[in-house]
């Protein structure tokens, strides 16, 4: 107020009209874009707070997939003798755990994001979609660290990525879409039904075993393999593993089924969220 950005004349201002909304609401991409800086700040805040509150800090991002990989390698690889498409089992599972962790963390955090930020929702207006979106985006740093870990491991075992590596970007995007889509559903449900927070970790665990992380999805024959692809994380994990390791089999047509399923979850999630949004501030 000191530097006097004086008010624009009333006639030239944009007018906002607030009326009760009915039924399905538009997503409002324009407004989301206008608030992109807030999205960035919220994501950064989540990252900073997360690392300031843990004893080992950033190392946490690497410890989790690393230890899961060790356990998997011991039980499924060594003892269970799981076939791993000709790739050393530790690499086989780690290459899947990195995108999976990104997805699972994004889902977990965005599901609780609205309830966790209820103080914002009841005090300030901004597009509510920003909250779950920034939650999912805040997982990108962990993902980058995990990917670095994977590349180091690969180099140590004589694996070097080739041009396929570029394909990891669309697969990451697919993981993001899946994570956000499911996160939108659960975050909106969580506002009204508080037992959702207990359901999500449970569901994530099941989902993990329905995804080819510890085993190879190539064992399935058609038509079951196509049915399997309805789980979008199947496409993500198989695709990512192939792209980064530069070996093994590309996921093939299953990727279309997975992408379609992911898009469906995202679009339905967006509309469901927007529909439920009108009561968030009243019940959260």
């Amino acid at each position, binding site marked *: *107020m*000191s*530097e*006097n*950005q*004086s*008010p*624009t004349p*009333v006639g030239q*201002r*944009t*007018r*906002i*009209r*607030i*009326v*009760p*909304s009915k039924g399905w609401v538009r997503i409002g991409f324009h407004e989301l874009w206008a608030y992109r*800086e*807030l999205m960035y*700040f*919220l994501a950064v*805040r989540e990252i*900073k*707070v997360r690392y*300031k*509150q843990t004893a080992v800090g950033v190392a946490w991002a690497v410890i989790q997939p690393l230890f899961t990989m060790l356990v998997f390698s011991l039980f499924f690889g060594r003892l269970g003798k799981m076939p791993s498409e000709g790739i050393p089992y530790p690499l086989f599972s780690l290459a899947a755990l990195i995108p999976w962790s990104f997805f699972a963390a994004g889902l977990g955090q965005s599901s609780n994001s609205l309830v966790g930020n209820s*103080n*914002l*929702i*009841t*005090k*300030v*207006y*901004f597009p509510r979609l920003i909250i779950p979106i920034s939650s999912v985006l805040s997982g990108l740093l962990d993902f980058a660290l995990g990917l670095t870990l994977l590349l180091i491991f690969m180099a140590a075992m004589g694996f070097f990525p080739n041009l396929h590596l570029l394909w990891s970007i669309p697969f990451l995007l697919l993981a993001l879409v899946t994570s956000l889509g499911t996160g939108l559903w659960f975050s909106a*449900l969580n506002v*009204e*039904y*508080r*037992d*959702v927070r207990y*359901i999500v970790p449970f569901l994530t665990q099941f989902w993990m075993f329905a995804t080819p992380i510890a085993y190879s999805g190539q064992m399935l024959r058609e038509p079951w393999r196509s049915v399997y692809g309805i789980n979008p994380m199947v496409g993500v994990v198989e695709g990512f593993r192939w792209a980064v390791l530069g070996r093994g089999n590309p996921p093939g047509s299953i990727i279309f089924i997975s992408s379609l399923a992911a898009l469906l979850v995202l679009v339905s999630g967006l509309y469901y969220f927007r529909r439920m949004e*009108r*009561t968030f*501030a*009243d*019940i959260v």
Partner: protein
Amino acid sequence: MSSAVIRVRDLGKQYRIGTHGPSYKTLRDRIASGLRFRRPSADKPVADRFWAVRNVNFDIPEGEIVGVIGRNGAGKSTLLKLISRITEPTEGEIELAGRVRSLLEVGTGFHPELTGRENIFMNGAILGMTRAEIVSKFDAIVEFAEVEKFIDTPVKHYSSGMYLRLAFAVAAHLEPEILIVDEVLAVGDAAFQKKCLGKMNEVSRQGRTVLFVSHNMVAVENLCSRGIMMDHGQIVFDGPVRDAIAMYLAGSDSEPGQDLRESSARRAGTGEARITRYEIIGLEGTLVRAGDPFTIRLHYECRQRVKTPVFCVSILTRSTLPLFTIFTKDLDYQIDEISADGFIDLQIHSPNFLAGSYILHLGITDAVESGWKDHVTDGAELEIAEADVYGSGKLRGASFGVLFYNCTWSLTSSPATLVASTSSGKN
């Protein structure tokens, strides 16, 4: 199209009773009830709903500072939440021309683990500032908050005063065309409040449109030209601010005391006897002016017989600093037992409270103080209106403190100085 900056038509907001309570639905219950009958609650009567705001109409032209006043639960905060787009109206419409910023709380989005600097950016973004805007105002914000030395310290190490100053500083540097402010000045010490009011005054002089909710009538009167008084979700008066305040202070809407049985009242105790409501009885009905005697009447109910009960009343400031506590036994007032409903009066003959709103804690215990039978620590309050307490022809409100005393001044000075000053006066 009118030239109004805020235009409100037939606005209404309906809530479900209990939506603010702690009991949430569970998905499990929802699924179970969905299986049993097809449409749960579809044809249930609407008795569990109430209108927090209804039939509200007004226009606010550019540059007007409007105070919204009313008792707790009159719908003021809901109205602000509707205009701030935090919650959606059930009916009617609002039209706003220009950038709206609302300040319903200072420090929204502050995180104790983040530093002052990080929180400024975070809070600024939440309040709708762009990064560039925050960068350009950063130094001014830090200076206003007086926290230069601690700007890279996590705010969890700040004193509460520093925290509040920083939080308000960010908000004070917003440049909205429409500013919506709710009761944020009720926090902090006198110096902080003065600073905030000064800033608000500055805003008002820049021709911005402001909607201001407060219980602080001094602030409302100083800042606003127009007053809207609300009661039970409706506008009962809209006109010059002095008239609105007079109406608010007269409080003649025949409230037979405040009901404390509802769930919102925070309370503790075993519950053999409970305080059901309280009344404030002044010389002019419910209106109590500073310095005038008044009575606090506690209505109670008994679930079972209570031997030698002891009643207690505490008066606290808004920041919950206890000012005064009195037990019945302090004044040797013995009650053998209570076993039915009734009430007890505490008469305060010469109170020393200045104008403002105070919190009441009301309790029932027993002679050995073995614990509370009932202790209400939320929901009861005492409003004191301004008065000319010193007989000087001036009203003294909350900015002069909380208390006043019957006192006298007397000056003593040495004769030499007196001579010197008199002689210099003659020259």
